[in-house]
Every structure is written in C-alpha cells, then in structure tokens.
C-alpha cells in the first residue's frame, strides 16, 4: 500500500513536470501571501507563469477584483518592476492602489478604444521580461487568442491578469485559474462603528491541476488575512446569485 502510494505520488509529480510545473526550490520566496488558497494550486504554489482570469459582472465585483489584484501586485512588484494595465474604459483610480502597497507611478496605463488593440498590447507586454505583471480588461477572448497569451507567458514568466465582464463565455479559454471576487460585509474590531478592512469572498472556480474552492479573505493593511469561515452563514449569502439589469 505504502509503495503504491509512493508510486502514485511520483507519477503525479512527473505529470506536473511534463506539463511545465517546475518544483520550487525555496518555497518561502515564492509565496504570494494568499495562505490557504495557495494550497489549491499544483505543488501548493501560486502560478506566476500563468494567465489568471477574473470574472466581474457588476462594477462592485470589478472594484473588488481590482483590489485583490492590487494585493497580488504588491508582492509581484516588490523588486521594483513595472506593471502594465490595459483597458478600453478604465475606471481604476490610481491613487487607491496605495492602499494595497503598490506605488501607482510604477503602473503604466494603456487606454485604447478597440478590444483588438488590447489583445495586441497584452501579447507584446507579456513577452516583455522587464515587467512584473500585465492586467487587461477584456471581454472577448477566444480559445486561440488565450492560447497565444499563454505561450507568451510561458516564455517570459510575466504574470497575466484578465478582467472579464461576460461570465457566459468563460468556458472557452486556457487560463490557468479563474477567479470570482465578490465583496463581503467588513468586520470591525470589537464591533466598532464604521467600515473595516476590505473583505472578499474569493471563489476559485477553475484551477488547472488544482482544486477549486471558496474562501473569505481580508486585506489586512499590508497583506492578505484569512477571515473566519463562520461568516459564510451570514445573510449576504442568499443575495449573491441575484440578477441585476
């Protein structure tokens, strides 16, 4: 039994290796600070050489996704590298990124009018090794286009984030992970009045070679903090599926 388990583990490692997941030597350096969520990924490491997709239907969701990405960027851009943010109708307020420990002056915004141009810039930017990450606000993304982006990422190692508004077309891409970030009521210390730290329900709806799941996460000022799971039973839960429009 023990030998069999070992063999299976060995085979799993081999398969991952063939699929391009290299075993990480120093785990602490590679941690992105997501805590338990990182366990959902293959090898237990947040994949940096990958495309991450965020489904944002409501403006509130895209604000939450922006915040979550901001938190990830603070780790990815720690070495002083720049980031490119491409969009057609940008609403992101650069100043707010300070909240997530990101210097807004290190983000290069590219505002174009056509989705086609967003794709072109994204591919070019993903090939650029001097960048830490590329964020693109995209709606239309076909399988072939996403595969091109994935190839560019694998070559350069730049992390790609795609913010998409249309949830229905979400199936047809090769993104490594698909996220859904929705806001959750914040909690203040000892029930003090006012708002607490931003708190989100982080749903990982698709992970290649990993385990999807759902977590409650809080931005604790300088890093992600896992919130108590008891909050799942709160009143907001019934409203998450509501339709607007």
């Amino acid at each position, binding site marked *: 039994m023990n030998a069999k388990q070992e063999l299976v583990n060995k085979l799993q490692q081999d398969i991952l290796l063939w699929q391009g997941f290299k075993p990480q030597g120093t785990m602490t350096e590679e941690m992105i600070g997501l805590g338990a969520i990182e366990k959902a990924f293959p090898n237990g490491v947040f994949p940096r050489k990958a495309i991450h997709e965020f489904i944002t239907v409501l*403006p*509130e969701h*895209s*604000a*939450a996704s*922006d*915040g*979550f990405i*901001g938190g990830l960027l603070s780790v990815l851009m720690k*070495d*002083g*590298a*720049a980031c*490119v943010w491409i969009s057609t109708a940008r*609403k*992101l*307020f*650069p*100043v*707010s*990124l*300070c*909240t*997530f420990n990101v*210097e*807004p*002056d*290190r*983000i*290069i*915004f*590219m*505002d*174009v009018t056509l989705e086609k*141009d967003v794709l*072109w*810039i994204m591919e*070019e*930017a993903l090939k*650029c*090794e*001097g*960048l*830490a990450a590329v964020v693109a606000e995209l709606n239309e993304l076909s399988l072939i286009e996403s595969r091109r982006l994935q190839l560019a990422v694998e070559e350069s190692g730049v992390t790609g984030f795609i913010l998409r508004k249309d949830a229905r077309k979400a199936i047809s891409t090769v993104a490594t992970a698909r996220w859904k970030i929705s*806001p*959750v*009521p*914040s909690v*203040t210390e000892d029930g003090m*009045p*006012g*708002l607490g730290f*931003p*708190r*989100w329900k982080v749903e990982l709806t698709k992970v290649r070679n990993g385990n999807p799941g759902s977590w409650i996460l809080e*931005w604790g000022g300088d890093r992600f903090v896992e919130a108590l799971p008891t909050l799942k039973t709160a*009143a*907001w839960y019934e409203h*998450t599926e509501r339709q*607007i429009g």
Partner: protein
Amino acid sequence: MPKRYVSIWFRQLLADWQLIRRPELSDVPFVFAAPDHGRNIITGVSQVAVSQGIETGMRAADAKALCPGLEVLDDKAGRSAKLLKGLGEWCIRYSPIVMVDDFSVDGLFLDVSGCTHLWGGERKYLKEIVSRLKSKGYTVRVAMADSPGAAWAIARFGKVTPLIAPGAHTESLLSLPPEALRLPEITLTKLRKLGFYQIRSFVGMPRSVLRRRFGEDFLTRLGQALGTADELITPLQLPVLFQERLPCLEPIKTRTGIEMAISRLLEHLCLRLQNEGKGLRTGLLTCYRIDGEVVQVSIGTSGATCSVPHLFKLFQLKIDQIRPALGIELFVLEAPKVDEILPGQEALWAGKPGLDDQSVIQLLDRVAGKMGADVIHRYVPAARYWPERSANRAVSITDKPTTEWHIDRPRPTELLNKPAPIEVMALIPDHPPKFFIYKGIQHSVVKADGPERIEREWWLDVGEHRDYYQVEDELGQRYWLFRSGHYGGEQRYQWFLHGFFA
C-alpha cells in the same frame, strides 16, 4: 580643401520659362511687367524684345511705344524666386549645397568644392551645367571662382573666361565695373560721380577712407568678392547627416524584400551612429517607386537607441503602410533627430527591474509606434485633495514623483469619471444616508464612515464643497457617496455616487 564656387546667372529667367511653356512665342517680342507705384514696370524681357532695345526697369507704356507689337504679360510676385528654387533643387545633382542668389533674384550659387572631378575637371563641369540647362531652354552664364562674390561678378560682367584659376580672382576683378560688387544703386551713383569706373581704381584705398565714404556694407561686399569676408550660405536642402541609401537592381514588391532592405539599411546606419556615440530618436524611411511616387513612413523612440532589432521591430509595424505598387527602386533611411547616447556599462547579470528597464522602454516604443503616444498614461502624485486632481499625468517615463502619495484617507479602487446622481434618504442632517437608489436599485446602508469634507479649489473652479461618506450596503458592497453642498432647507444640495471600494 580650397573652396570653389559657381555662380549661375539666368539672363532671361522669366522669358525662358514662358518660352518652354509656350514655344509659339519664340518670334514675338514679349515682356513681363508688374505694377509698381501705379506704373507697369518691366521685370523680364525676351531675347527678341532685347534686340529691339527694351530693358528691364522700363515702363511698359514706353516699351510699347518703342516696339508696337510688344506683348505684355503679367508677372506674379515671387515667381522668379519660386522658379529659382525649383532649378536649385534640380542643381543638387551637381553639388549638395545650392543657394538661391537673394541679392538679384536671377541666379544660383553652388558650393562645388570637391565636386568637379566627378565630371572630369572644372571646365567639363561648367560645360555640362551650361549645356544641360540650355537643352532645357534656359540661357545661362556661369563662372567659377574662389569666392561666391567673385563668381557672381565674373558670371555677369566677365569678358575673358568663366573659369578663374584658384587665387586669381582678385586680378580678374580689377577691370570690372563697380556694379559687379552687388552694391545698392545709391552707392553706385556715388562711385560713378567720383569717377570710379573700375574696381581697380578704389580697391587699393585704405579701408577707413572707404568706410567713411561708402559705409560698412560696401566694405563687406568688397571683401566678399575678394574672398576676405565670409558669405552666409543657406542651402536649399539641409544635408542630413545620418542617411543611408539602398538602390535595388530589381524593383522590390514583397514584404520580405522590404524587410530585408530595412534591416540592411538599419545595420549600416546603426553602426555609424554607434561609432559616433549617437542614438536615433526619429527615423524616416523614404521609398521611391518606379512609377515616380514616393512613400514615406516614420518611427519615433522615447529614448536614443541604436539597437537594430528594436528599430527593425518599430519599422515592421509600419510596413503595412508601404504600398509598393509596381515596385520600389530606392530606399533611403534618414535619422533626422539623433541624441547623444550614454554608453551603458555591460553587465554580467541583468540590472534591477523597473520603469527604465530597456525591454519596458522598447515595449512603450512599439505601442506608441502602432497606436500613438497618447495611448500611454502614467501618473505621479499631486499635492491636492480634490479626487479628480489628485494625480498628474507623467510627462515621460523618467518622470519621478515629487511628492508622496496620500495614503491617510481611504480612496475607492474604481472612480467614476463623472459622479452619478443618486436618490437618498437620510434621517438626520449631516448623517450618512439610510438608503440610496443607484441605477434603479435600492441599497440600504448598514455601515458608514464619514463625513470627509473636501473643499473645492476656488482658484480653479467654482461650486460647492463635497462631504464624502464611505458606506457599505447589506451585501457588503462598498461605495463612496458625497453630498454636494450644505444640508439645509433653502440651499440646493444633491447626493452623488463617486466610486466603488474594493
């Protein structure tokens, strides 16, 4: 190298030009006239009219009396200058530095230093110019001397030979009249009154005496003819320092061919730039097609560079704009704008990543080359509280923040360009609203923070101040609301939604 200049004098510029266009006028005496102080003054005379005794400067009415069949054509202001500019551009085949004679607008100057041997000597060179212009229909007189002034004088007044040997121009000037010095009429009258009919009679006089009598300009003109004073040469076409040409044996029609041409031109140009410690800022590729059309594409970089692969990529984005039609026979690559390049130290390992990373700058160049530079934005902090003005557009990639980013107050991750008006219900004045309706959906406020009052910058615009509230609804969605103006019965106020928190 000793300087040599050629002066070309178009004796009947306007008449020759008219004859080329209308050959039927060859037997008819005709003149060009332009109105001046209410009279029609003759500005150009044809050869037939000259033989009947008509000169430029006469009145048209007098000339008609002398020669009854005279045809008077209208002259347009600036026509001679325009013609000379065209002829000068044609003459660039003889010398890169061609200048229009702006004293008497009827000739050209060519700086021919080091050019004549290509035509087999100075005599053959002059002969070639005269015969080529003659075959086109222009009668010219030319002269070559060590200074532009001397060449001008010999071309118009010389009687012996148009070719003045190096160093012999002073001698050849001596027997010429003072008109050969390009002097104004008032000085010429003075000279004639004093009996100076030849340059010989005053050239040896002390300079102080001449200056007292005729002024400083006279001495300058004399010096320019003798070659002791400098003459300002303003060439018609400024020679481009960094230019590469690639003539093709066969006309090029394919994309691959154009790419090869560009990469070969870039290799040569970048090598030259590198040797001189320069980097390219703007590049201009001119393609001469066999049907006579010229196609141009240009690129720009945000910093001086002489990297061939990078520049090639920038041109690659523009190849679609080149229409080869029947084929391109000549490619010319110019670098109109170059900058000093700082020699970067070769590093064994990659430097610290950042905004000034070479690959990032190259990416920005490519994006700017394809979509335009106004696509790229970057922000630096501004010392202001008003949310819309709290960040300034960075001018360049090297622009560093001058102040700190404000992090003391919470700011929403998404900010609406224009605050959206909302309907609210607030129980107590100056309290956050109980609920608000945005886009038809009612949100009841569970938690709130505020108010944070932000005053308008009265020196920039007028209007009410804003009281901002951070609110959270029952779903946990966080908004940034504000009330414009004071809460009160008579005063007008309105609630707005300005942003979404993470």
